């Protein structure tokens, strides 16, 4: 069917756009901006069309749709197998939305040394890698998209980043690559140990569900795959690349890094590690849960200690992703649904936070909280109000998007999967929930304290004299969809839950059926 090509077209469209941008002569470099904008509008429209088609089409809003499966590298049995389901869909659409908003934002501001042509071409390349990850159903293909993300982000941080950009870029690159090596080895191990040698995720899922892999093998393979995803997510103690990368990256880089790249790790757990290696997942779930709660508390404590605004937001990501991982570690449908909701919410909210912080930095030329010295509500009333709104969403106020992922993750961990209860981990999980709940209080604490230091109080004279420009129309354009989404998802969480629940249940049949 021709319509099945839709996701292929959508995924590679940005790459085509990047190619077109590369052909633009250097003297008319500004022309890259409209090209990127048109490409990302097209991509977003297509992704929304795919979403609508998913509901209206034969799939009826559940199971796989738009499936294409053709041989790609016959010699190693790798196929070009792409499809989309309810788990991929929210992240897939979100990635196109964020790239669209970033290309609008690029009209407003690109960090030194400018060069919109190279910057936007890299951004579009990044888009192909990110979106491809969410639709790949072949391990080799997944790996290709996974690594494709690395190069543009490396250059984005390394060229347009802050003062310590080179260090941050290479750290990001090597950390991810280090994990990838283990992932690749684990993928090869899966390939050779499967009853029928294959890289196909669905076939491996079936084999994994039928108990084709031994327990010892599952534990080792899960460790290999999980290590790579844990670095990307990032899970404490593998998070140390993140504050550097986020802090030094240009605004657009930070937004995409927080909005989408981190989700590739947690998505990988849900899509690959859990269903293929259920026993491995059960073995490691308590460890993951403990590390997640450490991440929540540790992230919050680090945030309290930060003097750099952007670094503070970066550490808040560690905590938020901790909730996502806690949901996954519960191995229950509620937990996974909460995790996916948390991923989307974090993408929307933290993406938005990085936009605002980027804009504040652009005006103040500093990220140091002490330098800003408070009173953003006075110098730029609208910016201050928006910042307050998004920060409060991020701390998990009920009625805004940040709430649902966290509360359901905690609820799910209170009643983890039967297999975990049987193994005697119930008390552990309940203790962790209490600690995690304490973490939400800390989160509220550091965000409110940050607001107090940044937005409130009297602005120092040197800033009031400057007459800093408030939010520009372009910024409104880039931000308003996210601002609306924060409140829409807060009031109508079932928009995401309805999409994910059937497929999450299907994937977790392994656990409920097996236990």
């Amino acid at each position, binding site marked *: 069917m021709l319509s099945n090509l839709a996701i292929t077209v959508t995924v590679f469209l940005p790459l085509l756009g990047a190619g077109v941008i*590369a052909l633009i002569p*250097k003297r008319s470099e500004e022309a890259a901006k409209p090209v990127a904008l048109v490409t990302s509008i097209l991509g977003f429209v297509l992704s929304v069309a795919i979403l609508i088609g998913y509901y209206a089409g034969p799939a009826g809003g559940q199971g796989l749709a738009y499936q294409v499966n053709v041989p*790609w*590298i*016959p*010699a*190693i049995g790798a196929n070009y197998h792409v499809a989309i389901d309810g788990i991929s869909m929210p992240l897939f659409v979100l990635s196109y939305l964020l790239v669209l908003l970033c290309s609008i934002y690029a009209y407003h501001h690109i960090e030194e*040394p400018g*060069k919109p042509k*190279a910057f936007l071409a890299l951004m579009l390349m990044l888009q192909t890698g990110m979106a491809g990850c969410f639709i790949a159903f072949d391990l*080799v293909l997944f*790996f*290709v998209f996974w*690594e*494709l993300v*690395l*190069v543009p982000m490396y*250059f984005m941080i*390394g*060229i347009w980043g802050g003062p310590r*950009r*080179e260090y941050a*870029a*290479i750290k990001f*690159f*090597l950390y991810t*690559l*280090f994990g*990838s*090596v283990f992932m*690749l*080895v684990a993928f*090869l*191990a899966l390939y*050779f140990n499967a009853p029928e040698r294959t890289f196909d995720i669905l076939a491996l899922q079936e084999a994994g569900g039928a108990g084709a892999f031994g327990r010892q093998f599952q534990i080792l393979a899960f460790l290999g795959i999980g290590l790579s995803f844990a670095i990307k997510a990032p899970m404490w103690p593998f998070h140390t690349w993140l504050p550097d990368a986020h802090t030094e990256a240009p605004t657009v880089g930070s937004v995409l890094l927080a909005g989408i790249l981190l989700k590739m790790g947690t998505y990988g757990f849900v899509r690959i590690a859990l269903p293929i290696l259920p026993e491995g997942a059960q073995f490691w779930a308590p460890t993951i849960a403990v590390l997640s709660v450490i991440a929540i508390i540790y992230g919050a404590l680090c945030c309290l200690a930060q003097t750099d605004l952007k670094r503070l937001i970066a550490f808040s990501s560690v905590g938020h992703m901790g909730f996502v991982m806690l949901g996954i570690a519960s191995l229950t449908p509620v937990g996974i649904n909460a995790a996916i909701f948390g991923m989307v919410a974090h993408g929307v909210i933290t993406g938005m936070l990085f936009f605002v912080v980027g804009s504040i930095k652009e005006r103040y030329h500093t990220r140091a909280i002490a330098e800003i010295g408070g009173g953003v509500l006075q110098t730029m009333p609208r910016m201050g109000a928006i910042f307050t709104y998004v920060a409060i969403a991020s701390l998990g106020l009920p009625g805004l998007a940040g709430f649902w992922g966290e509360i359901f993750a905690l609820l799910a961990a209170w009643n983890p999967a039967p297999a975990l209860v049987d193994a005697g981990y119930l008390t552990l999980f309940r203790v962790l929930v209490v600690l995690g709940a304490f973490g939400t209080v800390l989160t509220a604490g550091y965000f409110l304290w940050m607001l107090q230091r940044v937005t409130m109080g009297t602005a120092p004279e040197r800033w009031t004299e400057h007459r800093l420009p408030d939010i520009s129309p372009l910024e409104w354009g880039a931000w308003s969809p996210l601002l609306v989404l924060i409140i829409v998802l807060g009031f109508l969480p079932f928009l995401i839950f309805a999409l994910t629940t059937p497929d999450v249940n299907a994937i977790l049949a392994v656990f409920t059926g097996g236990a």
Partner: protein
Amino acid sequence: MTDVTTIDWFALAPELSLLAGALAVLLVELFLRPERKRLVNPIAGVGVLVSLAFVVALALDGQVRSSFGQMFVVDNYALLFKAFFLSTALFVLFLSYRYFTEIRTYQGEYYFLLLSSFVGMLLMPSARDLVMIFIALEIVSIPGFVMAGLRKFDLRSNEGSLKFFMFGVLSVAVLLFGLSVVYGFTGTTDLVGVREGLAALGEDGREPLLLASLLFVIVGFGFKISAVPFHFWAPDTYEGSPIPVTAFLSVASKAAGFAGLLQVCFVAFEPLADVWAPVLGGVAIATMTLGNFTALQQRNIVRLLAYSSVAQAGYMLVPFALARPGGGDINDAAFAAVLLYLLAYAVTNIGAFACVVAVTRQLPARQIDDYAGLGSTSPGIAVAFTVFLLSLAGVLPIAIGFWAKLYILIPLVVEPTAGSIVLAAAVVVNSLVGLFYYLFVAKRMWMDPATETRDRLRPGLALSFTVGVLAVAVLALGVFPPPFTEPASRSTLTGDTAAAETAQAE
């Protein structure tokens, strides 16, 4: 047995036409005025193209042909290599055109020597006889000694050339001695005959002298492919040679060495694989580790690429360590892995040297620091060079280098043994080490500002074409590798394939 005196002229046509091209170059140059001497480059190009046309015709013909008895065979494997060598020759000609026009020395001689060397390369994959392999190896090497010294005005060129010559002669002597002992034991120089002879010797017949002679042969080839510890000539020679010659030495000449090693190891010495495989495994680890760690400290781009090419030879040696006597499948996989890696490496490395040639026109010092700011002055070359470097690093699945490395890793983990796990770990660790210096150059180009203002590079048409075509090839094959992987896995000389071919030829 076929009549040794019958000659299949069609099978020999590629070699003969290339030889004719070489002689035409030498003759025509005499009659050209100095400023028009650069015209010999297109003449050489025509010779290569005619030869390539014959190779294509032979491939379409599809028949296994032989001449001089079984000494010279044209089969899938030979044709793959011939097509590969001739394409390399074309790109080396593109690289040479402007370079030699500008240094204005010995143009006729250079192109004659270059084509002569390629004649030897065409002979190499067809040679199925120890004597023939030796002759091919010499035809490849001797013009190389002279070409390396063509920059006579530069002391380093003289030094490099002399080192190359001394090492070359020494290793050839050792090789020849090894071959003569093997002949003594088996009574034949035919590769398949040697295999049968060695197999017939059995366990008891493994005398120390025989095993030592195997190592002598390996040493001979080890020099050609610059494996540690026979690599000392490489960095100095690469640095001193004209850069197109460096590209030629690091790709074509090395590939010829690998072709010979493949034939000798996987066909003739196959029954003794349990002896030479671990040795080559050790050499592989030493080669890649030493190459990579030394490359880390280089500040001269040509020396960096020289050590990088030493390290790459190490990766290519890894599959040799998997060979087993009578191990059909695993030998097949190992053989295909070497072929694929060789092809991928060639495409990438020629591209990288083309970029170096382009930069050296403006900045002859060849320092890595000269590449600072290249990303803003000449983004095209910088993008292509980044692609080549990432492909050489071979860790990202967007360039052909990654798939080549995966092909080497897969046979290692199919049936893991202690040895293969050590090798796999060595490949992985070395790839990460390699990434450091490849990325370092990329970082220089993109993230550091230029030390002084400078103009955009003007590489000229031939060079831009080479860089562009190769960069696109590296990326396109990185996305869709089958055009590379399929011919490589169909063109092995091991196991059943070889047996079938021998039967067919007789």
